[in-house]
């Protein structure tokens, strides 16, 4: 039996650390480039107008995201309202109550597969079910129809995250509660769910992030592109941020150049340098990222506070 060379073992160690470091640099570098490119394109348009103005397909200087921001908040809010209770309840049932049978395993596999279905398929389902069949309730391609579609889309994520959160709660807590004569539900409600709350918050973050960023299903169900009023209730028509961004990107840049040529815009206008509609679209991406980031910060602070309170 021969001793392994220590030098070789250390060399392998160094090599792997280097590979890991390079991997993370590649990932973060890509992200930084993406952000840099988006922000630099958006920079001339990051003004109050882009937040408070309604959409315009005519003049990039007048174009804004007011309806899209409010629409996104509506859709995300309603999606959380529907998906969190539903998903948490389903997750708790599967993890705590469902018998370990073949049917349960089938259900769990089904939920996991649902998470892998392309989002446009959920859009088609939403179009058929919520926009057309349930038109009397939703009122067509409305905030409600959008939120219900998103609810189906994020449901598997909420279920799986809930299952993981519940599973991570030590069995000793459950037993401690049961030994005091708690019913199963009292043990879950009183100890398991509070102890798993940080994990459940992760489910909220995941659901909200997904609902905020998804574009395809909303386009398919028929969200508007250029809307000049704010959605006021669940049965309003709406536009969401990613849909609006997609809308701006699709506008021909030629129009903008024509405006320029016809002397509608001052050729000395610095905004021209950024290329018009792509700049507006990039500003929309920045708004979306800021909202997403703010939401995540709030959730993270809440989660840390929860964890600290337990000590």
């Amino acid at each position, binding site marked *: *039996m021969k001793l392994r060379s220590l030098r070789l073992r250390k060399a392998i160690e160094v090599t792997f650390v280097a590979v890991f470091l390079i991997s993370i640099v590649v990932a973060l570098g890509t992200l930084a480039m993406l952000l840099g490119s988006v922000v630099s394109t958006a920079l001339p348009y990051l003004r109050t107008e882009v937040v408070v103005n309604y959409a315009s397909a005519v003049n990039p200087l007048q174009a804004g995201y007011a309806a899209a921001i409010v629409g996104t908040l509506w859709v995300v809010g309603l999606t959380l309202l529907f998906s969190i209770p539903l998903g948490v309840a389903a997750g708790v049932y599967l993890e705590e109550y469902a018998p*370990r049978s073949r049917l349960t395993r089938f259900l769990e596999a089904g939920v996991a597969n649902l998470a892998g279905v392309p989002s446009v398929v959920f859009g088609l389902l939403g179009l058929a079910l919520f926009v057309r069949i349930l038109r009397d309730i939703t009122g067509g391609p409305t905030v409600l129809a959008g939120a219900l579609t998103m609810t189906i889309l994020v449901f598997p994520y909420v279920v799986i995250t809930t299952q993981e959160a519940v599973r991570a709660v*030590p069995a*000793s*807590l*459950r*037993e*401690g*509660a*049961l*030994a*005091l*004569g*708690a*019913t199963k539900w*009292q043990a879950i409600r*009183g*100890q398991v769910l*509070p*102890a798993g709350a940080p994990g459940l918050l992760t489910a909220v973050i995941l659901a909200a992030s997904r609902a905020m960023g998804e574009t395809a299903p909303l386009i398919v169900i028929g969200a508007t592109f250029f809307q000049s009023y704010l959605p006021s209730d669940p049965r309003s028509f709406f536009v969401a941020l990613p849909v609006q961004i997609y809308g701006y990107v699709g506008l021909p840049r030629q129009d903008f150049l024509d405006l320029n040529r016809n002397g509608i815009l001052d050729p000395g206008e610095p905004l021209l340098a950024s290329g018009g509609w792509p700049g507006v679209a990039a500003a929309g991406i920045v708004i979306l990222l800021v909202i997403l980031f703010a939401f995540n910060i709030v959730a993270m602070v809440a989660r840390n506070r929860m964890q600290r*309170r*337990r*000590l």
Partner: protein
Amino acid sequence: MARRLFFLKAEKPAQPPETVSAELIPPTPSVVSISDAAIESRNLSVFYGAKAAIRAVSLQMSRRQTTAIIGPSGCGKSTYLRAINRMNDTIKGCRTEGELLVDGEDVYGPNVDPVLLRRKVGLIFQKPNPFPKSIYENVAFGVRIHYRVTDEELDGVVESALRQADLWDEVSDRLGDGALSLSGGQQQRLCIARALAIEPDFLLMDEPCSALDPIATARIEDLMFELKKDMTIIIVTHNMQQAARVADYTAFLYLGRLVEYNRTRDLFERPHEELTENYITGRFG
């Protein structure tokens, strides 16, 4: 080279020397009988799947006394203890046969609800398992799940339970603090307070001191002497000195069978069975 090989071999866990074989288990255990038993098992057997963890154990436990269950690891003593408040029900594939009478009623009978049984029969776990909440909430939880109480009533119950568990003086000024900030011994006394708050008649303790230092252990043992004035205590322990100190009666289990059951003093000083003697003299364990 030879030396290195020697070290490699030494790292493998050595097989414990099995000096006592199952043949020494007496066909009929030596059992003291007790009148007016608070808890009585008749031919109680517990199975995990096809494997029997407890085989036909019959014994009676005396009211307002402490009974210790001793035996080597894996002898089924925890399984027996958890059979009493039906905590084994929560384990999948666990099956119980025979009778287990608590206050004369078979707890495996058709009309017994484990939720009500467990209010009467408290259980303290081996590792302190306070809820990750405040000290107050730990004690209040059990009360709230069984009773509708006003805030004042609850305050009173929490205080009296903490006093009974000899913890009040240490925590009275910080009831809102997290229970996990307490020391191990305090956590275990909090778990006892939590169990006492719902006024059980029986207290099952599953090696309650195995994770504690000697001083914390002594405080729990003192507490047991206080508590047995009005409740029946059954303690599982792998520590024979502890059994000798706290218990009025001691049962010795081996490979799921009851070997000997007697007054603690008699069992330790004049064991009837050879197996018992081998165990308490430390010849195996």
